[in-house]
């Protein structure tokens, strides 16, 4: 028995993340839109200043390091889950994160840079954006910049990559972008349409994240970074990537003690109380509800139109209707939303209609995408409902001299609606849940708010439970209401 347990223990140790000296360390990082940190270059090779630092780290630690692709916004949960040994991807040292993970000493000091379109005259500094409902600032999921925008009450949209944020700024969908200097330099400095506004501010540090239990690994990395600072290899790498500046020179390279780089915006991010995040979740719930109702109304209209076209239209129209249904039932919703939000504006600009492209807000794209998709499902539900009204009803109405249009509107459709109600209710609940997909195009609906808040505060369980309660608080009344309607309409129904 004892032998059995020691075998298990030995197994655990061998597969444990750190203690096996021979196996390579796993490095969690997101290469998608990751320039200049870590990205694929034109030759499809992984490059970036963090890649260079990791190579140097390999030499100093004497261990192989293997790259593991991981979504940026999930890096910290992934680290805690044990999917890799350390995370290094421009991770900012934020007070809330420090409670959950161990950060090494910094390898770079960043500051926030506000970027605007060239010639911006409506505001001249970041401060003016606070509380402005008509100005929107783009940033990235789970960054210090996002936490700053939340704290300062600036209306914002969070993207999963910087590319899309700067592109939407250029397209006029955003009024500014607030992101760490390395990204601003990479994506905006050379763009003639964009300009930096004001001096960089709100300094912070990039450090490598290690699980809290892995002190030995953290200490080893600390020593290696120290060596890289002392032998100048870190400065050499960062200079090559054009992000070394006087600020790093004095506070990082010239650091005599930790106090030099321990500047923390004291009130940034910390103190995730219910009172602080609940209003944000409630606002997300409001957007989710609004999106559900608006896109369902659209789906019902499209569904009825397509169903009628398919049943009574001339042959070519019938074929188009079938094509519509098959197309929108087959295309993944996420893909459709990406196309509508990120792709359609450039298509519209290409055919000389850039003005329409500006109307495509995240909400509009989500509304359209959900409406088009669920319109296809609704079309099939309504078609079969219309067909299941007995043919005799048409004849009885005809015998009373009712024209076809009148018969359809006043005799067939009201009966079809009753038949279609139960499957339509199911559709509504499915649509309600699918609104969460809109978080992928930066819409601040409930799911997106949850992700932002949970990842910033690391209170996955607590905020998750509250979010779940909010979802239920919306979907349960929705279900009850439609069941009541079903009962009311169905009560007197029959031959």
């Amino acid at each position, binding site marked *: 028995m004892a032998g059995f347990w020691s075998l298990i223990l030995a197994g655990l140790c061998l597969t444990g993340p750190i203690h096996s000296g021979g196996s390579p360390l796993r490095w969690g990082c997101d290469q998608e839109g990751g320039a200049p940190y870590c990205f694929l270059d034109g030759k499809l090779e992984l490059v970036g200043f963090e890649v260079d630092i990791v190579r140097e780290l390999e030499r100093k630690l004497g261990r192989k390091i293997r790259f593991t692709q991981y979504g940026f916004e999930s890096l910290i949960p992934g680290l805690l889950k044990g999917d890799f040994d350390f995370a290094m991807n421009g991770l900012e040292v934020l007070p809330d994160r420090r409670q959950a993970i161990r950060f090494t000493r910094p390898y770079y000091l960043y500051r926030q840079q506000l970027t605007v379109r060239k010639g911006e005259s409506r505001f001249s500094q970041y401060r003016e954006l606070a509380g402005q409902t008509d100005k929107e600032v783009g940033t990235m999921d789970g960054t210090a910049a996002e936490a700053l925008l939340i704290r300062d009450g600036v209306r914002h949209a969070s993207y999963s990559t910087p590319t899309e944020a700067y592109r939407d700024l250029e397209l006029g969908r955003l009024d500014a972008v607030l992101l760490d200097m390395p990204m601003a330099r990479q994506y905006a400095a050379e763009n003639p349409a964009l300009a930096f506004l004001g001096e960089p501010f709100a300094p912070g540090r990039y450090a490598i994240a290690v699980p809290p239990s892995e002190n030995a690994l953290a200490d080893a990395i600390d020593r290696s970074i120290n060596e890289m600072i002392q032998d100048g290899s870190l400065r050499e790498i960062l200079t090559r990537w054009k992000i070394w500046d006087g600020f790093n020179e004095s506070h990082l390279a010239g650091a005599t003690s930790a106090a030099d780089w321990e500047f923390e915006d004291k009130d940034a991010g910390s103190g995730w109380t219910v009172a602080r995040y609940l209003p944000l979740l409630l606002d997300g719930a409001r957007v989710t509800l609004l999106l559900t109702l608006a896109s369902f109304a659209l789906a019902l209209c499209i569904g009825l139109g397509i169903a009628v076209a398919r049943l009574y239209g001339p042959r070519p129209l019938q074929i188009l209707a079938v094509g519509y249904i098959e197309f929108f039932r087959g295309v993944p919703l996420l893909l459709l939303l990406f196309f509508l939000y990120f792709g359609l504006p450039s298509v519209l600009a290409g055919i000389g209609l850039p003005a329409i492209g500006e109307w495509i807000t995240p909400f509009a794209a989500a509304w359209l995408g959900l409406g088009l998709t669920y319109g296809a499902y609704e079309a099939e539900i309504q078609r079969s409902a219309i067909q299941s009204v007995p043919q*005799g009803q048409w004849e*009885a109405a*005809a*015998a009373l*001299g009712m024209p076809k249009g009148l018969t359809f509107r006043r005799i067939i459709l009201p009966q079809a609606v009753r038949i279609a109600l139960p499957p339509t209710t199911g559709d509504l609940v499915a649509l309600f849940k699918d609104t969460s997909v809109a978080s992928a195009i930066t819409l601040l609906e409930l799911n997106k708010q949850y992700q932002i808040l949970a990842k910033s505060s690391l209170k996955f369980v607590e905020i998750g439970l509250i979010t779940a309660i909010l979802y239920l608080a919306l979907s349960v009344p929705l279900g009850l209401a439609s069941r009541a309607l079903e009962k009311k309409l169905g009560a*007197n129904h*029959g*031959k």
Partner: protein
Amino acid sequence: MASDHKPAVTGGLGIRISQLVKRHGDREILRGIRLDIQPGHTVALIGPSGGGKTTLLRCLNGLEPFDGGSVDVGDNTLHPGNGRPREIARIRQTVGMIFQDFQLFPHLSVLENVTAAPVWVQGEKPKVARERALQLLERVKLADFSHRRPAQLSGGQKQRVAIARALALRPRGLLCDEITSALDPETKHEVLVVLEDLKRDGLTVVMVTHEIGFARRAADRVVLLADGKVAEEGTAGEVIDAPKTERASRFLARVLG
């Protein structure tokens, strides 16, 4: 008000069927039917199933397009093919139809079933249509049921609502397609009583029926249809009690047992 009671019905119209042919693919369902129906007569169409009775009836108000011959209903004439919509619409407002399976509108109340066509098709004021509908429901002994839904009625009650619904357009003719076949003997009686009552108003009634007893009692003329042709035509006494053709005797022997 009192003067409003009777004009629901304004006297029957004549129907003339000439060389009516109806095909279904290669099969001829009606093979040159000739029939004159006098205004105010009640005509019973009897005969074996598959003989073309229901098809003939449905040709009379354009529910079924036909392939040859013509049908005159009052002043309107139906020709082969899908016909002219205006002609058909006029006929449908002068000739009501009642179906074997009622086909009341389930989502409407009894009263709304009756007022639907006058209000929606003829543009009658809802208030006036309601008044008249209540009188018609009174006549079929269902005034107390005006706010019920069809699902809450018995078969006989449903069929009487269907009659009131047809009468609401002030028709001068009534087409009845086996209107008692789905009913049990007791409720059958309720419906037949209403039908006999209508006869007194001078309405022309064409009915497909298996009620030989009722046909004998109420019909002015009886037409026996077999294999898409008129096998025999005459008074009830002539056709039912003294059939001249072998086809007719065979059928009557079977149904009369």
